[in-house]
């Protein structure tokens, strides 16, 4: 198993401690792709950064993260650095700020390789190969960041993430700053790389439909917890948690008469992360809330083949449950 995360929690120390991530568990194998969805403040980025301990020192990480069998939450910093260099790399969303404006693209990728492997030979050729693998002409080696478009810069970032041949890529909103058509190109590229090289990928986004298209399985986070987990296609088509249903409905399917002139939204705001309340955290905003929801112990229950959901309604025997009624399609 490439990555095994068990009961991961992140708490920020403050006068009122902020529970950003609360007991997240999942596994990921090489060649697999996991999408993590949720709105801002849901803890999705914190969770992903906690895997590589890329969080500020005020954050306390609990639980277990096993990467290729090695426990990372307690690993020495030197070991941690090694993992960050060649085991796992991160593609951040801001491709503009992450590149040094006075160095060529090639120089910057070279730097990433040389720092890790001093005696590497034939670096130039390797970098040109990398550039071509992300769809940039090899002559772009000599280009400065300002000579590239946003999409090209994001491709360079992906090339840098791939430079040390990682086994895991964490992509945090890799396409939010990009244009529709370029976004499609970058997503297609990431998907292709994962399929061809057998690396694992975790992609974070607030856009469920982008994730569903690129990732095989999906985890939906709300208030620091995973509220639904499962194969992406089924999860989006038949959500078993009302929050997933709301996210799925937010980006309509063109041609679906149910969403024509009827944008679907979700009222209210996410809960205060410094509070620990009983019951389901989504209850105050839930369109299908029941009396028990505010008091019952909520966990991720089995909700069908390879699927889990943290909604009380999956416990009931009615198969088409909560979420089904929310996204009911006509026809």
């Amino acid at each position, binding site marked *: 198993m490439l990555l095994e995360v068990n009961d991961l929690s992140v708490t920020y120390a403050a006068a009122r401690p902020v529970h950003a991530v609360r007991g997240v568990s999942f596994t990921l194998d090489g060649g697999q792709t996991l999408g993590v969805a949720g709105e*801002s403040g849901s803890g999705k980025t914190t969770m992903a950064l906690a895997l590589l301990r890329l969080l500020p020192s005020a954050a306390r990480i609990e639980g277990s993260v096993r990467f290729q069998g090695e426990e990372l939450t307690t690993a020495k910093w030197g070991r941690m650095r090694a993992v960050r260099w060649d085991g796992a790399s991160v593609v951040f969303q801001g491709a503009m700020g992450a590149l040094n404006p006075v160095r060529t693209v090639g120089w910057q990728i070279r730097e990433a390789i040389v720092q890790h492997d001093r005696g590497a030979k034939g670096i130039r050729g390797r970098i040109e190969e990398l550039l071509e693998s992300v769809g940039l002409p090899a002559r772009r080696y000599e280009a400065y960041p300002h000579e590239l478009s946003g999409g090209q810069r994001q491709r360079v970032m992906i090339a840098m993430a791939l430079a040390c041949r990682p086994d895991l890529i964490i992509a945090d909103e890799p396409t939010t700053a990009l244009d*529709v058509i370029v976004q499609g190109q970058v997503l297609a590229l990431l998907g292709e790389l994962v399929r061809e090289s057998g690396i694992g990928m975790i992609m974070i986004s607030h856009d469920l439909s982008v994730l569903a*298209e690129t990732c095989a399985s999906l985890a939906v986070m709300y208030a620091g917890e995973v509220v639904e987990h499962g194969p992406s296609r089924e999860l989006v088509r038949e959500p078993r948690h009302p929050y997933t249903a709301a996210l799925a409905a937010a*980006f309509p*399917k*063109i041609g679906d008469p149910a969403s024509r002139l009827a*944008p679907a*939204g979700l009222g209210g705001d996410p809960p205060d992360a410094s509070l620990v309340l009983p019951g389901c955290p989504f209850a105050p905003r839930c369109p299908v809330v029941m009396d028990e929801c505010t008091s019952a112990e909520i966990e991720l229950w089995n909700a069908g083949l390879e699927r889990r959901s943290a909604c009380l309604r999956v416990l009931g025997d009615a198969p088409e449950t909560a979420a089904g009624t929310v996204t009911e399609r006509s026809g």
Partner: protein
Amino acid sequence: MSTPLLEVQDLRVTFPARRRRPPARAVDGLDLTVQRGEIVALVGESGCGKSTLARVLVGLVKPTGGAVRYDGQPLSHRSAALKAHRRAVQLILQDPYSALNPRQTVYDAVAEGPRLHHLRSDLRDRVSESLSRAGLRPPEQFFGRYPFELSGGQQQRVVIASALALQPSMLVADEPVASLDASVRGEILALILRLREELGLSALVISHDLGLAWNIADRVAVMYLGRIVEQGKVEDVLQHPRHPYTRALLAVSPDADREAVPPLIAGEPPDPTAIPGGCRFHPRCPLREELAARGVDVSSCQTSDVALAPVDGVEVACRFADARAVQTASSATPPAQTSSG
């Protein structure tokens, strides 16, 4: 039919040359109309000139050519006329946080417009009403708040409320939900729809997202390099796209029900400083390649410009729009609904 609320004819905006680069033709011969009470979505990728168009419509950018008529009257850049125009047409920007002055409270932000237009009587009632219309209730609770204390959705509601305070007849919204969370997106779009119902507001909503058009618009106009390449009723354009560019946009709009498809068109967003001759889309056009491979003569794409022409109730700027009816149902178009066919 009565005069349209907004009529744009052959609009041109050219930005002067900078640093050895040729001038940028951001808007280049654009025609567009918005009827009273109508919501029109303008869709295109970044750099196509859609934001420049928005700024022309509220009088922030002076066009270099063509005509903008509002309520039958040509848009004047003389200050008194412009001020009246700016009361009637309100601009809503993408990022609500930066669109609000961080040192103004919600009350002051909403009262700003009426104050600028000397509508000081009943100012408090006006602000209250605008805030509750925008869904911030009870409004008094929000008066003293600063923008950073509000969530993104609430900030965008404040921006909308500050537009409503002037009782406009039209909203020009430039990517109104692009920087908002998925769960808030629908709420804001529903608000725009409700305002149309309650106040008869027209809206031009500018976006890169075709799903947004499907959600709220009556008509959709697809813009490419400063010009409309296809426009018509939302159902017609989005379910039976005729222009290859519209098809390409539809192909990349995410759809959970299918595998990611490789984008139909490659390359970078187009450059308004170097608009190709002939049909401006021809260098990226997948249809042209396909037709050429089948032995169709496509040389005219490179040599002569093509204007919007009516095809089956929509307007398309592609000389092969008609010949392609057979292929529309196949390949990368979205799963078309049988109901409207």
